[in-house]
């Protein structure tokens, strides 16, 4: 209640300021006159009475000021005065202002950019309604915990089982399913043929996600009823790229996967809910309770928690249901499992995102980056605090005078805080501008790096912008900087003795030894912090370099990978088997001949994997006389494969054209396989026994291959894993469904021509994938480290620049204080060289101290980066050495200018100066 009346009284007093003043005057005058009257009545002479009354009352102005204070009306007065003062200060010191504002703006801007990435990827990644409650059910295979592929796997269920979960659960507000497996379809609008990534969705999926369509409508529940007219929905990218944003195509009929369907809607660009790369969505037609359809792919699941239900409660509930299902269909589930409900964000960017080979813990990375940018902010703040402190020392005399004239300490601190607030607000606005540019750059590069076209859907629904929470964060950071930066100079003011400043020479230099030390401490801390940032970024850079320079055993440059999928008209026969049949071989040969004739193509090879990421471990193999067997990868290919990928043959020969054409049971093995079974002996001419070898046709049976050659190891589980044993076989004995094209032009420029040539041979052929081999490495292995590098390298760069500015300003300031001393030294015969050395040594002491502390801190902190670093030791001496050298050089460079200024001091001027 008193709070209210205080505010009311403050507002009244502030708004009706002049009324208050006149009332106050009248009231005090009345007091004095009345008192004087009383004195007169007691026999004092009238003029004498007035004088005595005034005298006894004491200082009228002081009383008034205290009254104003009581009403807090000075608040506004003081504030405007302080603001005017701050503006004048900024205006008269443009250099100081520019450096301080720019430094803070870089700090605030970097924080805002990183927070924008952090917030929008972790808390705003989905455009769905109530996105914070979106979850993905997952399974933990209890037998695999701790193994390389022991991560959480997203749960997939047959639609009939999904119905069970939907009916029996107590924890989900909605559960929908979508099937992306085998999801490339051919579509034809009568004029032209297209191929689309398609997902089949349960008909309630779009209403569940609740993002309105850009044009037309999304899928609705009625679309799933038997007998409903068949429809589909398209994503905005395909609509823009393939159909040139033609609004007329909504309502048009297409033949999709051999069935007529009407396109009823285009989804907005911020929608990529069901499947990472899906271009069209087709509703599943079924009534709930329909039993399982044989051969149907299981569906991936998205659910929304009822509000107030925890992830643990949901996991427990789901676990019960799944156990009942597992009892009915034991083949669909791992032997021992636990159901875990993950937030959709964690499923997207958490440690399990990306599966076993393509692991990327973006969530962890984002926290690391946020920590890094906070360090940067600290550096920026200490820089500005130092500047303000130096500035405050120069103003010591002014402040001392104001103190002597009666300004309270509180008032002075208020003023200094207002000054740093003005700096911070200006810097905040400039920082927003930097952040705007920064997020634009990252937003432009993110899809390029993360590439929604292949598995990763990070950023598909994210728009990295300066939305309200991000702006508020930036403002919060700015407020924090006011406190940090403003506090040091404000504390400086609190020093008790004014005397020396009033009587002293007007140069605070001699008296500020303590604060010189404090400033040096700040610079040392700054250097140490930047060491941490630089070593972090350095390690990431080294790791990225090592990663991109791993010897893959083949050359991925200028290679286009084309993978065929089984077309519907061929009864979904797997492509492996189809192309091994005589009729399929004819198709394949004709396609190869046509592709070889394409301009820009120099080699075409047939094979059956994505080089670098396959073959996975296959059947058991052994050799005659060996006591053990091991799992090896089998790679089926033709005679051109060696040349196309530039494999390196070390012994014997490669597969010959005759081997391939006449389906000879011969094999080329890699070095790892050779040494596992033959040691140093020559394996060429030996036999390789493959247990249960599965040819394109017929049942699996044990088969022998003659070893004809050995090649260098080739990576097959991604570049980060050691090479596995691999045997290369003629594709005619095993089957092949992919082509590798060695090109002399940019490989992705050929995708369209390749598709045309393939469709010229067989109109029903589906090209499952047509992508430069390099893109696989980029998207599956390089993307996350590149992303972290893209953010952390500029941060490290900025920190280095700030440290240079910090060292420079402190050295320059200390030289300016020492001018007098240097003058005396020179007058007494000191050489320029020794002065130069003296200043440089002083700087070097700061730098070395900072480096030593920084190295200890880095050493302790780098283990938090462990998950982002590969192939480099966390205490990599090259990185640490490089960073130390860099800081040393940059730091001494920053000292050089002040040192030279010191050395060029004219003793006469310096001594007379005062």
């Amino acid at each position, binding site marked *: *209640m*008193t709070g*209210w*009346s*205080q505010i009311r*009284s*403050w507002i009244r007093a502030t708004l009706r300021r002049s009324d208050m003043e006149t*009332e*106050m005057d*009248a*009231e*005090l005058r*009345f*007091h004095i*006159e*009345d*008192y004087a*009257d009383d004195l007169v009545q007691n026999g004092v002479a009238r003029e004498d009475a007035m004088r005595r009354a005034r005298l*006894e*009352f*004491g*200082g*009228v102005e*002081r*009383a*008034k000021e*205290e*009254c104003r*204070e*009581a*009403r*807090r009306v000075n608040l506004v007065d003081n504030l405007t005065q302080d603001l005017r003062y701050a503006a004048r200060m900024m205006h008269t010191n443009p250099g100081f202002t520019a450096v301080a504002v720019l430094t803070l703006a870089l700090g605030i801007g970097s924080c805002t950019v990183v927070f924008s990435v952090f917030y929008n990827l972790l808390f705003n990644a989905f455009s769905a309604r109530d996105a914070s409650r979106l979850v993905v059910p997952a399974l933990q295979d209890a037998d695999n915990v701790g193994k390389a592929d022991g991560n959480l796997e997203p749960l997939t269920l047959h639609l009939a089982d999904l119905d069970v979960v939907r009916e029996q659960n107590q924890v989900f507000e909605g559960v929908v399913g979508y099937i992306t497996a085998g999801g490339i379809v051919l579509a034809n609008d009568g004029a032209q043929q297209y191929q689309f990534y398609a997902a089949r969705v349960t008909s309630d999926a779009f209403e569940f996600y609740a993002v309105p369509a850009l044009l037309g409508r999304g899928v609705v529940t009625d679309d799933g009823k038997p007998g409903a007219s068949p429809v589909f929905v398209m994503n905005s990218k395909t609509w823009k790229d393939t159909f040139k944003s033609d609004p007329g195509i909504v309502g048009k009929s297409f033949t999709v996967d051999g069935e007529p369907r009407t396109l009823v809607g285009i989804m907005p660009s911020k929608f990529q809910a069901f499947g990472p790369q899906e271009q069209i969505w087709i509703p599943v037609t079924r009534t709930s309770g329909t039993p399982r359809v044989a051969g149907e792919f299981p569906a991936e699941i998205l659910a929304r928690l009822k509000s107030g239900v925890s992830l643990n409660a949901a996991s427990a509930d789901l676990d019960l249901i799944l156990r009942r299902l597992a009892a009915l269909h034991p083949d669909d589930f791992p032997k021992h499992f636990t159901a875990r409900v993950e937030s959709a964000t964690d499923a997207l960017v958490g440690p399990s995102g990306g599966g076993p080979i393509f692991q990327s813990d973006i969530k962890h990375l984002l926290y690391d980056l946020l920590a890094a940018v906070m360090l940067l902010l600290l550096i920026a703040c200490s820089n500005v605090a130092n500047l303000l402190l130096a500035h405050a020392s120069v103003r010591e005399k002014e402040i001392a005078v104001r103190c002597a004239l009666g300004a309270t300490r509180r008032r002075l601190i208020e003023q200094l805080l207002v000054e740093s607030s003005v700096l911070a607000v200006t810097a905040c606005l400039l920082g927003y501008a930097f952040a705007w540019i920064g997020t634009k750059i990252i937003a432009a590069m993110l899809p390029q790096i993360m590439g929604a076209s292949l598995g990763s859907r990070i950023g598909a629904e994210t728009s990295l912008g300066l939305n309200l929470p991000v702006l508020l964060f930036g403002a919060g950071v700015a407020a924090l900087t006011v406190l940090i930066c403003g506090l040091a100079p404000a504390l400086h003011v609190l020093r008790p003795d004014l005397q020396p400043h009033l009587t002293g020479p007007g140069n605070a230099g001699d008296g500020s030894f303590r604060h010189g030390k404090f400033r040096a401490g700040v610079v040392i801390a700054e250097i140490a912090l930047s060491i941490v940032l630089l070593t972090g970024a350095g390690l990431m850079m080294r790791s990225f370099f090592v990663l991109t320079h791993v010897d893959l055993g083949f050359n991925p440059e200028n290679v286009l990978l084309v993978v065929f999928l089984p077309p519907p008209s061929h009864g979904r026969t797997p492509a492996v088997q189809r192309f091994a049949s005589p009729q399929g071989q004819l198709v394949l040969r004709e396609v190869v001949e046509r592709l070889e004739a394409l301009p820009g193509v120099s080699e075409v090879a047939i094979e059956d994997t994505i080089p670098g990421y396959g073959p996975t471990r296959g059947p058991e193999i052994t050799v005659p006389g060996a006591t053990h067997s091991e799992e090896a990868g089998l790679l089926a290919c033709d005679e051109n494969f060696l040349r196309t990928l530039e494999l390196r043959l070390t012994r014997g020969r490669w597969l010959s054209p005759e081997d391939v054409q006449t389906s000879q049971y011969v094999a080329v093995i890699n070095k790892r396989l050779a040494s596992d079974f033959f040691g140093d002996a020559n394996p060429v001419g030996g036999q390789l026994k493959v247990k249960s070898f599965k040819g394109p046709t017929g049942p699996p049976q044990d088969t022998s291959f003659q070893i004809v050659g050995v090649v260098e190891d080739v990576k097959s589980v991604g570049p980060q894993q050691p090479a596995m044993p691999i045997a290369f076989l003629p594709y005619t004995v095993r089957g092949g469904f992919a082509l590798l094209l060695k090109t002399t032009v940019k490989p992705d420029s050929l995708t369209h021509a390749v598709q045309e040539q393939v469709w010229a041979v067989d109109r029903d052929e589906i090209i499952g994938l047509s992508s430069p081999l390099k893109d696989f490495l980029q998207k599956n292995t390089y993307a996350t480290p590149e992303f972290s590098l893209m953010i952390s390298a500029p941060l490290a760069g900025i920190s280095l620049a700030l440290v240079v500015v910090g060292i420079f300003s402190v050295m320059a300031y200390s030289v300016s204080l020492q001018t007098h001393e240097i003058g005396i030294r020179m007058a007494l015969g000191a050489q320029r060289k020794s002065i130069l050395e003296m200043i440089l040594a002083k700087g070097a002491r700061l730098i070395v101290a900072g480096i030593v502390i920084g190295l200890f801190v880095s050493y302790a902190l780098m283990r938090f980066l462990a998950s982002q670093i590969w192939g480099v030791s966390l205490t990599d001496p090259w990185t640490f050495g490089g960073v130390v050298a860099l800081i040393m050089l940059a730091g001494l460079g920053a000292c050089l200018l002040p040192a030279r200024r010191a050395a060029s001091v004219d003793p006469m001027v310096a001594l007379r100066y005062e």
Partner: protein
Amino acid sequence: MDKQLDLLQGTLDMLILKAVSLGPLHGYGVLLRIQQISRDRLEIQQGSLYPALYRLEHQGWIASEWGESENNRKAKYYRLTAAGKKRLQTETDKWNRMAEMIAGILGTKREEV
């Protein structure tokens, strides 16, 4: 010994509240009333009276109104508000307890320890 006692820190507010609780007063009146009740034993700095009045009004414990003084001058009269009445009560209680306690302590005799 001095006939006038110095005012204890913080007690001025309480005295003002007590003074205006006996009836509305102008600032000078408050001063006179306190001196009268204390039989001139208390010295109050005239200059410090007004900041205290303003502070109390700011807190909402007293309210002011312009009126006519006995000798027909315009004067600002202060009166106690409901909140001020409560405040005075708690302050008085606190003061009494305090005084009692201190008197008790100071009056302690050797044999009582």
